[in-house]
């Protein structure tokens, strides 16, 4: 992260979009860590008499059908949604990198078997795969995160394998083997560090898509049980009130959109930096 920050800082003047994106991400992450600092309203207890109030000074995002402050629900829902997205990325990154590393380094029949398996995963649309997995696992935010992570495993495996193939025959790797290092030591000390860059950049780019996927599943009702707020379920709850309360689905939806955009901008910057490094 600090690496990313220095890179972004050094190029901030050249790309103001990065600065804006960084600010958005910082604010949202602050919401996730210390929601109490941003709103004084209780996210789950509302005032029924104040139901469906449009946005104003007291309620920045308006209120929902039970008179709960929507800004408070959005802010308090951030933690759950962002954590789910990070968990999904970790699942995809660890499992995908593991598969790619083994396939790329060992090659031969192991490579064939693992890559055909990832082909199967790639053939199924990601969201559909997540739906199938979450149906099998059951409802809940953690399960949604795991399901989304599993759907992204194949992409990570592919990128990691291609990187491993690139460095596997590099002179320093062969030198290490000739010097008598064991296979595991070679993989961990020489192959993994030199192959990890583009995979980490991919993680940053994928984060936006993963947040969308987590929100989509929670929109469909697979996520946290009400009244716990979550970005996707906030948008979903507003569906029945679209005609009378435009703010209900719109404002939480805009928060998701801006955050995903900002993550995307930062992720692409990181990927570009990764390329110029090479």
């Amino acid at each position, binding site marked *: 992260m600090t690496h990313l920050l220095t890179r972004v800082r050094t190029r901030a003047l050249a790309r103001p979009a990065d600065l804006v994106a960084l600010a958005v991400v910082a604010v949202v992450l602050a919401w996730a860590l210390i929601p109490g600092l941003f709103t004084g309203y209780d996210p*789950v207890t509302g005032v029924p008499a104040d139901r469906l109030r449009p946005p104003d000074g007291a309620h920045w995002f308006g209120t929902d059908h039970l008179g709960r402050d929507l800004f408070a629900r959005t802010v308090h829902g951030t933690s759950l949604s962002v954590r789910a997205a990070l968990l999904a990325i970790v699942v995809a990154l660890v499992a995908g990198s593991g598969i790619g590393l083994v396939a790329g380094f060992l090659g031969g029949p192991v490579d064939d078997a693992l890559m055909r398996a990832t082909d199967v995963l790639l053939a199924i649309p990601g969201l559909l795969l997540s739906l199938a997995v979450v149906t099998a696992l059951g409802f809940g935010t953690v399960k949604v995160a795991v399901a989304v992570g599993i759907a992204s495993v194949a992409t990570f495996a592919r990128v990691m394998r291609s990187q491993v193939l690139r460095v596997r025959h590099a002179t320093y790797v062969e030198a290490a083997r000739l010097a008598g290092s064991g296979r595991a030591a070679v993989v961990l000390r020489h192959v993994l560090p030199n192959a990890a860059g583009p995979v980490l950049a991919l993680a940053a780019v994928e984060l936006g898509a993963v947040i969308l996927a987590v929100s989509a599943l929670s929109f469909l009702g697979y996520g946290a*049980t*009400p*009244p716990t707020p979550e970005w996707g379920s906030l948008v979903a709850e507003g569906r*029945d*009130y*679209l*005609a*009378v309360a435009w703010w209900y689905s719109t404002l939480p939806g805009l928060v998701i959109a801006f955050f995903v955009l900002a993550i995307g901008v930062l992720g692409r910057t990181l990927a570009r930096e990764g390329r110029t490094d090479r």
Partner: protein
Amino acid sequence: MVRTRPHHTTPARTTPHRTASHRAAPAAVAAALVAALALTGCAGPDSASGAAPADPTPGGTLRFALGAPPQGVDPQQVGTNVSIYVARQLADSLTDQDPATGEIEPWLAESWDVSEDLTRFTFHLRDGVTFSDGSPLTADDVRASFDAVAGELGATAPLAASYLAGYEKTEVPDERTATVVFDAPNAQFLQATSTVSLAILSEQTAQADPAERLQGDVVGSGPFVLESYTQDQGAVITRREGYEWAPESSEHEGDAYLDRIEFSVVPESGVRAGGLASDQFDAVGDVLPQDVPQVEGSGGEVLTRANPGVPFVLQPNVTRPPLDDPEVRRALLVGIDRQELVDTVLSDAFRPATSVLASTTPGYADQSDQLAFDPDEAGKILDDAGWTTGPDGIRVKDGEPLEIEVTYTPVFTGSGAVLELAAQQLRAIGVDLLLRQLTAAEQTTAQESGDYDLYYYNVTRADADILRTQFSTAQRNLSLREPDDAVDPLLDEQLGEADPAARDALVADAQREILDQGLAVPLFELAQSIGVRGDVHGLAFDASSRLLFHDAWIEQD
């Protein structure tokens, strides 16, 4: 034998066209026309959209948006309102319950005799009724239908089976006479014969596989026949030619007006209302308060009728802590502000529950003194029972937090919001109500294994015997309680009581006793809230507040 042949004269009706029955004598027709003209002149109930409707015009397709997917199309097996909207049109029942008076009137049976001890019910069937496959409806079909429900079908048709509890056999002395025999007095059975659950289906349907029947393998004698049914998507039914046996409460005799009805499932209430306003639907179910302006703004109107039966309740599983403590259950009774539920997330059509029976059920007794919202009292009950407020506001006893999980399915669109608000109210008295939404199949599993704290449901029935069906330890008994000497005897006695006043008294005692023991936490009375476009007329509710399409018609150009 008590002869209870109902008279055929037409009582005063609430809508102008009802009196124009083809059966009536010419003089009566003239009188009816005068009455109709007079009523139309003073703006009858059908003219809410402005101009008084013209005469019914046959033809056209009615597009109806259901709020939830039907369970299937077999009248005897289904229980949810949306399923019955479809299934009711396919089959008729022995009797009909007048929605205005609650009286039982002839339908497939033109008369009936009931033995003094309420164990033998003899039905004299109407002549000339045929099923949609052309075969005549005879007493053998009645026997086959009831034998099936009391036998193998019973497992998948719990409601119908409960109506036939104690069923011994159906005797068929001749083709048009069927005598249903019970081993014990059965005061509820006559009303039960008017329900969709005991609709008469053909003998061949009675032998079909229950799962296939749900998917459409049903042959009935109703005004419509099933064209197609796609699970979770919808159904199409078409008019049947030669339908000549509409009940007295129907506004016209003969074939239905509509050619076709297309039911589709649209879970979002806003989409349903928007679809009605933009002419994608002609009628929509479950109109929620926020959608009423949109429906009325597009020239339509919202038809409402309260459902009789057990209102929406939270029924506790008394074998699991903390609900095994009667004091906790008593605290829940007074800890919920029912008026606020209705005002905040429901509409004017709905009423706060005031008993374990809805106020439109015969035998209902007002118990609102036991259900008055009193958070201080609720807090005091819990304090006295040893539940002390913990650091996060949730009460604790012996290290266990006061967490109660409610199991529900979204059969009614407003359920989630109602339960969220109830949870918010209960949190104020230190009770943590957790919501657990399940699919219908998962709920059946949970119910069979007793895996729930509170079970959220309602049952519609225009007879107080629904209390026995739901609360007797010999019946559904969602509370999983042991037989007792207070509730069970009352529920059994009312079933054998022929005198209506004495039966009402027993039912009133039962309602009080059920609430005293906290065996149900009533929330609100369900109402059907149907949005229709301005050019749709004649859509009617039966006595159980389910839709009848026989009289419905759309203005044709």
